[in-house]
């Protein structure tokens, strides 16, 4: 038995080596070089050999050690199991310490402008992930055009702030309402669609919004983008280095030295609060009838109908609420950048947000945070390697899917319990 297994593993790895040779032989092995203005082929067989050996050996090792993997839980190893158990049982503690850490983060000694920028970016993605988690994780509607709501939020904030001069705190809810309206607008035609078809339509919707922004020049200034979006103020106190005569600013009011970091720190706390509101809202709404109906709809729509749950309203609220949080995040993005253009709302943004939700474990709030830190962190770490960034990004996704096929944090806790008094995360 054992011997058979060994023989079949060796056969399998030799076959893998052959495939690697067929693939990498022409791609890597044959390189054309210009020699005396003529193209000559200069073979690089050594590299090909190395690649083939690595592939075959790697296949052999995976065969030997991690072949018996579980479809549901991925590769079972003691390390993986203990990490899983730790994450599943200590979820609340991890979340609490993460919140405390993020509150004191701006004042840690090693925190500089660069780290703050990354943290703000991560928090924006976390908020978007949490918003999309309502649509994908809870209601099970695969939305590939989420960035459209982000864009609607950003543009409605920018337009209201520029043309009417309204403050951030008035424009923020307006942007959210606008995005929610677009959510319903998208929701109506796709009510009957499911799975792949829904994904295609939402993807198209995302592109439509982007192209609309690109071409409606009178309103959106097209590819030039909107500039001069007002910065948020600290309850009416602007962040300015040189205040005008008699004007109160943040640093004069509090008697501080002016520093550009003050605004960054304010933005950081702003997005932190917005993200936490999103999180609290989602945790709460999951336990309400509407949240339970979302999850039931994800599980079985026909059974829902037989129990008198209105699938139309349930789906539309999921789209609308998810979109609303996307809109909030969008208006934060606009006020932080002070400049927006359709460039910022391409499909890749949607793809990253979907990846965050799926890799985090559908429906898991803590999972979204872990996936964001992992993916966005990775993109940042590899910033200097430019074209290798996306390879690292893709590689990370492949690894997560191998080891945790249902996402980093896949276990779902019931929204209501009869026996155990458990806090739902």
């Amino acid at each position, binding site marked *: 038995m054992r011997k058979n297994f060994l023989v079949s593993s060796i056969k399998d790895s030799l076959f893998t080596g052959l495939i690697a040779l067929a693939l990498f032989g022409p791609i890597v092995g044959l390189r054309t070089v210009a020699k005396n203005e003529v193209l000559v082929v200069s073979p690089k067989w050594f590299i090909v050999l190395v690649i083939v050996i690595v592939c075959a050996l790697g296949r052999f090792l995976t065969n030997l050690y991690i072949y018996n993997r579980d479809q549901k839980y991925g590769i079972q190893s003691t390390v993986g199991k203990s990490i899983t158990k730790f994450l599943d049982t200590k979820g609340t503690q991890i979340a609490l310490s993460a919140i405390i850490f993020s509150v004191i983060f701006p004042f840690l000694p090693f925190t500089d402008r660069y780290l703050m920028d990354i943290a703000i970016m991560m928090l924006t993605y976390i908020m978007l992930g949490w918003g999309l988690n309502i649509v994908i994780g809870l209601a099970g509607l695969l939305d590939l055009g989420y960035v459209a709501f982000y864009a609607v939020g950003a543009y409605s904030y920018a337009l209201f702030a520029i043309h009417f001069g309204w403050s951030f705190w008035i424009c923020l809810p307006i942007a959210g309402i606008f995005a929610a309206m677009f959510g319903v607008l998208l929701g109506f035609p796709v009510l009957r669609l499911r799975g792949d078809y829904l994904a295609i339509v939402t993807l198209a919707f995302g592109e439509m919004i982007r192209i609309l922004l690109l071409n409606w020049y009178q309103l959106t200034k097209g590819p030039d983008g909107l500039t001069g979006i007002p910065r948020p103020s600290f309850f009416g106190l602007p962040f300015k280095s040189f205040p005008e005569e008699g004007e109160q600013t943040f640093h004069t009011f509090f008697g501080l030295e002016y520093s550009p970091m003050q605004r960054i720190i304010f933005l950081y706390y702003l997005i932190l609060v917005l993200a936490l509101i999103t999180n609290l809202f989602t945790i709460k709404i999951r336990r309400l*009838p509407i949240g*339970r109906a979302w999850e*039931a709809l994800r*599980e079985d729509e026909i*059974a829902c109908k*037989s129990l008198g749950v209105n699938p139309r309203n349930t789906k539309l609220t999921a789209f609308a609420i998810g979109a609303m949080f996307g809109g909030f995040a969008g208006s934060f993005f606009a006020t932080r950048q002070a400049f927006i253009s359709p460039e910022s709302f391409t499909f890749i943004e949607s793809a990253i947000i979907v990846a965050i939700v799926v890799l985090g474990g559908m429906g898991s709030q803590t999972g979204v945070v872990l996936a964001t830190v992992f993916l966005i962190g990775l993109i940042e770490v590899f910033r200097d390697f430019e074209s290798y960034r996306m390879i690292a990004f893709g590689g990370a996704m492949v690894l997560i899917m191998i080891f945790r096929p249902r996402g980093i944090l896949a276990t779902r806790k019931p929204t*209501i319990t*009869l026996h155990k008094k458990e806090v739902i995360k």
Partner: protein
Amino acid sequence: MTQKLLDVENLTMRFGGLLAIDDLSFSASKDQITSIIGPNGAGKTTVFNCLTGFYKATAGSMFLNKENERLNLKKFSDFKVAQKAGVARTFQNIRLFPQMSVLENLMVAQHNKLMDASGFTIFGLFNAPSFVKKEKEAIEISKYWLDIIGLTHRADDDAGDLPYGDQRKLEIVRAMCINPYLLCLDEPAAGLNAKESAELNKLLLFIKKEKKTGILLIEHDMSVVMEISDHVVVLNYGKKIFQGSAKETKNSPAVIEAYLGTEE
């Protein structure tokens, strides 16, 4: 004479050229179990799908007689049959919410009531006392039904992890949680062993006696049909070929012919 709960009159369902149900009339009484039997493809599930709004009947009418109103089920489209008319159903292949807990399955069944209590989520977000009270009541109702089917100890487990027989029973009590006037069961005994189907009989008789809910039953398992039905309707090729008590049905030549064919 008991009051008729359901009157199906001249129901016809046509899929293109196929006549699935042909001018079918029957009635079901309150606090009685009415079985619909017939060979495969006789149109039994189609009758259910028409009753519960999954199909729109081509012709005919279906009246549900409540205490003081007479509703034509044909006017209600899909989910409204359960929501407004109070007709619940189960499915031939069990349709639970497998990744949700047993208790959550029962809570989803009480969605409309809770949704109203939560003021379309707004009151619920702020834990309004009226909502909290309603939710507690809903949990009590769920607990009541779980006690009856003996699954209280598994209330917090995923419904998909239950044994097959328990899933069947859970699906039935989930349908009961919407507090229906009429409960339509599509082959509830399929795949159950002798002990489980005896338990099922007990549960159905309990629902009939205590809850005064009319039960409409599609079943192939004749031991279940003969033991608990008060009234049997036999379909073949979409037509009613017989109706009567269980005993009469067993001895009817027309029914025997439909199931076994005629002797030459």
